[in-house]
């Protein structure tokens, strides 16, 4: 398959490189009336077309940009309400055969300590995460023959079967190398959540320059990686770009074209979009000084434009970003964040002084899960560990039926409250509990009479010791 794709690599893909450049050129200095029309379309919850997104990317007027921020905040509130889903990354192994210039795990980086968790170490990591209150993980693997589909499936199975007290991991998302269709089927068989592959950069010449070695050097093999996942029956996939490698406007266009491609080919777009900015990594000069750094202001622009372009796609913001910026950016459209994260291999269960040398990059938000939850609640958000949809057959094409505000009110908000109640009962500090119980009371009071009583009963059941209560 790899050899086959190597031959096909130069053929046209669904990322029209020239067309993106032309669109970004053609839509410069946009007419404010046109920009407002596009914002109105977005607020009616329609996915934008490439020309429309390109127009938003070319808005330079500060007042108009502020209008974009306002629209993005409004759209987020309408579709997602005030919930924020929380998860943690769990690095299983950092062996890698690729040589991505910007990455701390690249094969030529001799200063990174290579490590793959043993089964026992993995169980300890999971227990440490469960003990903090986590229910959702993203497991991360380098690209290496050690991390075969069978290995990935086995590690996920171990995670699902590791319990501690009331706690357990209920959803495991995966960030791993692109697989063959057969490989995906093996991974799918253990019941994964989302399979993520980040293209890193959609700009072909930049991609070729930054990925000189290994399977990842093949642009098309990676680009079509999620097509193969969907062909294997994985209906939740996540796309992403690493901002800082090339022009951020081009990358946003790439993410949009990728979304459109999946919608057209499979009838369902990506479940999530990630938009990490490059961060410094051990012995990786490129990461200290990326060629296309994205300022905080432009980062806010790109987040709001992605929100406006794909109203119903989940957006993931990571702990790479500083807490103050995270607080601001969340409001512009983010639906999921990681919290209490540690990205050294084995670093949840061990206070390892060498953690940094086992990490892919460095984190800017080092707050604990409890601190993040407390801060979110102070800002009026409901932290959620909900995993109900994918355990009630509300997945794939069926999930799209629920991407409407009514569903959020009647399902997502109650389920967020239930999982927050579990957290407060089992893991929260006293200070967090006090804020949390007040928030829950306030949120229940806001609910329609039709569901208020059912939610109150659910909360009481949890307080009495029942777990995994959900709608």
């Amino acid at each position, binding site marked *: 398959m790899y050899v086959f794709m190597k031959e096909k690599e130069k053929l046209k893909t669904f990322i029209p490189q020239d067309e993106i450049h032309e669109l970004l050129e053609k839509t410069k200095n946009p007419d404010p009336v046109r920009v407002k029309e596009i914002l109105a379309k977005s607020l009616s919850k329609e996915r934008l077309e490439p020309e429309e997104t390109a127009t938003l990317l070319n808005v330079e007027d500060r007042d108009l940009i502020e209008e974009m921020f306002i629209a993005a905040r409004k759209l987020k509130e309408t579709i997602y309400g005030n919930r924020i889903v929380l998860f943690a990354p769990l690095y299983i192994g950092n062996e890698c055969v690729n040589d991505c210039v910007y990455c701390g795990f690249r094969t030529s980086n001799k200063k990174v300590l290579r490590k793959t968790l043993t089964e026992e170490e993995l169980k300890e990591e999971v227990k440490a995460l469960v003990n903090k209150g986590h229910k959702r993980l993203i497991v991360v693997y380098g690209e290496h023959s050690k991390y075969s589909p069978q290995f990935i499936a086995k590690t*996920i*199975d171990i995670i*699902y079967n590791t319990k501690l007290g009331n706690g357990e991991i*209920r*959803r*495991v998302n995966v960030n791993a190398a692109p697989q063959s269709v057969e490989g995906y089927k093996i991974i*799918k*068989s*253990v*019941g*994964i*959540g989302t399979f993520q592959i980040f293209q890193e950069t959609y700009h072909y010449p930049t991609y070729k320059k930054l990925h000189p070695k290994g399977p990842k050097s093949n642009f098309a093999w990676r680009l079509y990686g999620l097509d193969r996942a969907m062909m294997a*029956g994985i*209906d939740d996939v996540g796309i992403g770009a690493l901002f800082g490698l090339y022009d951020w406007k081009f990358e946003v266009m790439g993410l949009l074209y990728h979304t459109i491609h999946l919608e057209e080919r499979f009838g369902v777009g990506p479940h999530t979009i990630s938009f990490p900015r490059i961060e410094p990594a051990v012995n990786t000069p490129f990461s200290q000084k990326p060629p296309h750094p994205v300022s905080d202001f432009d980062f806010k622009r790109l987040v709001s434009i992605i929100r406006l372009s794909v109203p119903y796609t989940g957006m993931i913001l990571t702990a790479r970003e500083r807490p103050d910026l995270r607080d601001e950016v969340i409001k512009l459209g983010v639906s999921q964040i990681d919290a209490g994260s540690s990205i050294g291999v084995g670093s949840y269960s061990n206070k390892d002084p060498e953690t940094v040398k086992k990490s892919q990059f460095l984190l800017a938000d080092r707050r604990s899960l409890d601190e993040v939850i407390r801060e979110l609640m102070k800002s009026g958000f409901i932290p959620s560990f909900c995993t109900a949809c*994918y*355990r*009630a*057959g*509300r*997945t*794939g*094409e*069926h*999930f799209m*039926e*629920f991407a409407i505000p*009514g*569903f959020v009110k*009647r*399902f997502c908000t109650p389920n967020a409250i239930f999982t927050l109640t579990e957290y407060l009962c089992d893991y929260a500090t006293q200070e967090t509990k006090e804020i949390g119980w007040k928030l829950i009371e306030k949120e229940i009071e806001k609910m329609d009479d039709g569901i208020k009583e*059912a939610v109150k009963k659910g909360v009481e059941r949890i307080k009495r010791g029942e777990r995994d209560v959900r*709608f």
Partner: protein
Amino acid sequence: MSDSEVMNLLSQIVKEGGKVWVAKRIGRRISYIEGLKAGEELFLPPEVLYDDGQIIVFCEGIKNMERAKNLARRVAAVLEGGDQK
């Protein structure tokens, strides 16, 4: 498997309103089987009509649960008798 047979059974389940959909268990995940649903979304908490560890039939807003459960058993039998999709 006969898709039309399954769809016919699903239509019978929602004859008097409600919604039904069919999923299969994949490890911890319970995944919707593409195309296998009938009725209108009412935004009620889902109830399980049938669960044999592999196939799960969910419903909401169904009035006659006993009748629906019998029909859901037949849905599973058809699905498990042939191609598992």
